[in-house]
């Protein structure tokens, strides 16, 4: 769970207003870089806003049914000086049950530049590289919500923390990236009160299988304190990507499968796996499907498993907007089977930084 701070008040759109004011206020400052005023916008960072609006209908009915402003993400990035490059993602989540909203610093870190070849270092708050999906911001999710298997093992919110990550990418015949990190332990995946050091690592491998196809195989592990024991999270993921590179808007295909599990001595283990595929069959259209399975328990002996399947159809008029529709079927623990229909509008304004591959 991110550290969320309530923006109380009567106006449910308070976060959005703040964002709008930021955009309005910026250009109102001196444009010419007047020496007398001492203000200029030439050194402003790249600023962008992602907005997600969601409509949801579930059978049987759920509290979450209806229309909502799902999340707004304000993203700011810039080179700080010759030594650091900074990135921040601030998330605004309007509370559907009342006028309050929550603000969370999803990520806020600096990367150190100019280190020896192949070495990377980042410091600050970041999404821990525990698996593939956990590193994605909401607007990057391949489906509207995270696969149930990810939520079952890692929790409903992505696991982020304040810490230090070092990475090294040796020059081998294929791409390899080794990442190790330690963090404060203030995550819901672990005991927040204990604040024992959380540490983990991830190894990423990527092979070019031709000019249009890549294969990635990665493994992750993370260890921290939970219920007076050491909780070890582990996982592996594989991704195959293909795109017809000879056409700007050519057909493209992505297949991802990820496995996650945990181990706490004396406690039942949780584990889950999901697989999904997305296919661009026309310039503006994507179709996808996914399946998720997880096994978890709230108490020893209370084991059960969940299954989830989804279908998606997305219309993507440009790089900066998209409309996704999904049909999901979930067979959850301790509840009746659910059938959910979702529609999500996603748009981006401003100078949004390019995503990693």
């Amino acid at each position, binding site marked *: 769970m991110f550290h969320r701070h309530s923006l109380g008040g009567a106006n449910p759109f308070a976060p959005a207003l703040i964002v709008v004011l930021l955009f309005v206020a910026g250009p109102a400052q001196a444009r010419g870089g007047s020496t007398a005023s001492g203000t200029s916008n030439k050194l402003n960072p790249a600023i962008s806003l992602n907005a997600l609006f969601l409509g949801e209908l579930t059978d049987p009915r759920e509290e979450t049914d209806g229309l909502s402003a799902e999340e707004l993400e304000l993203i700011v990035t810039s080179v700080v000086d010759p030594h650091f490059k900074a990135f921040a993602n601030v998330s605004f989540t309007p509370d559907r049950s009342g006028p309050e909203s929550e603000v969370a610093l999803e990520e806020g870190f600096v990367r150190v*530049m100019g280190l020896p070849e192949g070495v990377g270092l980042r410091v600050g708050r970041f999404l821990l590289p525990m698996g593939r999906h956990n590193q994605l911001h909401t607007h990057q999710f391949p489906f509207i919500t995270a696969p149930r298997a990810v939520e079952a093992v890692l929790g409903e919110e992505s696991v982020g923390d304040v810490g230090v990550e070092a990475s090294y990418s040796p020059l081998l015949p294929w791409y390899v990236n080794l990442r190790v990190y330690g963090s404060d332990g203030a995550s819901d995946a672990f005991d927040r009160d204990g604040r024992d050091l959380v540490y983990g690592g991830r190894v990423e491998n990527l092979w070019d299988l031709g000019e249009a196809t890549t294969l990635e195989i990665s493994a992750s592990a993370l260890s921290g304190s939970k219920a007076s024991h050491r909780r070890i999270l582990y996982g592996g993921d594989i991704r195959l990507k293909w795109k017809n590179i000879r056409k700007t808007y050519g057909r493209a295909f992505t297949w991802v499968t990820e496995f996650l599990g945990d181990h706490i001595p004396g406690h039942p283990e949780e584990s889950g796996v999901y697989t999904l595929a997305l296919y661009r069959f026309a310039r503006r259209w994507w179709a996808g499907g996914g399946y998720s399975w997880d096994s978890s328990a709230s108490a020893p002996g209370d084991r059960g498993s969940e299954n989830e399947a989804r279908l998606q159809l997305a219309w993507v008029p440009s790089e900066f907007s998209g409309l996704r529709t999904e049909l999901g079927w979930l067979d959850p623990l301790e509840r009746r089977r659910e059938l959910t229909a979702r529609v999500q509008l996603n748009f981006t304004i401003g100078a949004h930084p390019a995503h990693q591959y």
Partner: protein
Amino acid sequence: MNVVATLPSLGDIAREVGGDRVNVTSLCKGYEDPHYLQPKPSYSRTLRKAALLIDNGLELEVGWLPPLLDTARNPKLIPGSTAILDGASAVTNVLEVPTGSVDRSQGDIHPFGNPHVMLDPRNALAVVDLIARRLADLDPEGAAGYVMRADDYKTRLSARIEEWKALAAPLRGEPIVTYHKQWEYLAQWLGLNIIGYVESRPGIPPTPRHVTALIDSMVKKGVRIVLAATFMDEDAAGEVALKAGARLAVLPAEVGGADGTDSYIDLIDTIVHELAGTDDR
């Protein structure tokens, strides 16, 4: 010296100027749209070894080069470094630099101007000098050779420019339609008159209403050529050309974009001959 160029045309010029003293790799293939290269981590391995990165600039590569530089972890390639060279910085007459407000209702616009500068070989002459100077800065021992090879290449390119101008002279004032806002520099050089685009806005696919209006306009203005890069949507461009009674010219926009375009000079030669309707070589 390891030199990495984002575009094959810049790579070819670096190879011509650098000679045996440089080992040049280009990230983008000639048949790929340079706006939308997939930033595969394997490219960051290439960038790791680079002593010089030559990009086009004007934000042509903004969608994929920054994340590659992050993962390359090459201490030489950090913002502001002399190991990063913007080819377009040599060009003094950048076209279509917005003067008013800019937003994406105008499509995928480039806020710093049209980046496709390499489609005017006169701009390439300036880029040759720029690359030679930077190579000389980074490798002073080879400076004399870089200057000599740059001068030799410019002499050869300049001679071909005169040839191409003569060949394309009958096209001066010719009204044409292009698929994407990509050929402005070429049109300015050859005196072609771009009267419309198949895309309704840059990067935005054509609507039926736009296509109808465009075809009407083409018929009225006597457009005989529709120009599209190999990686664009040939079906839409072909439909427009067919209905307007024009010829669809699908051209390489970069070195390696088609057979017989292994060098920058070959690329421009192919484009000019194709436009002039004399590509029977």
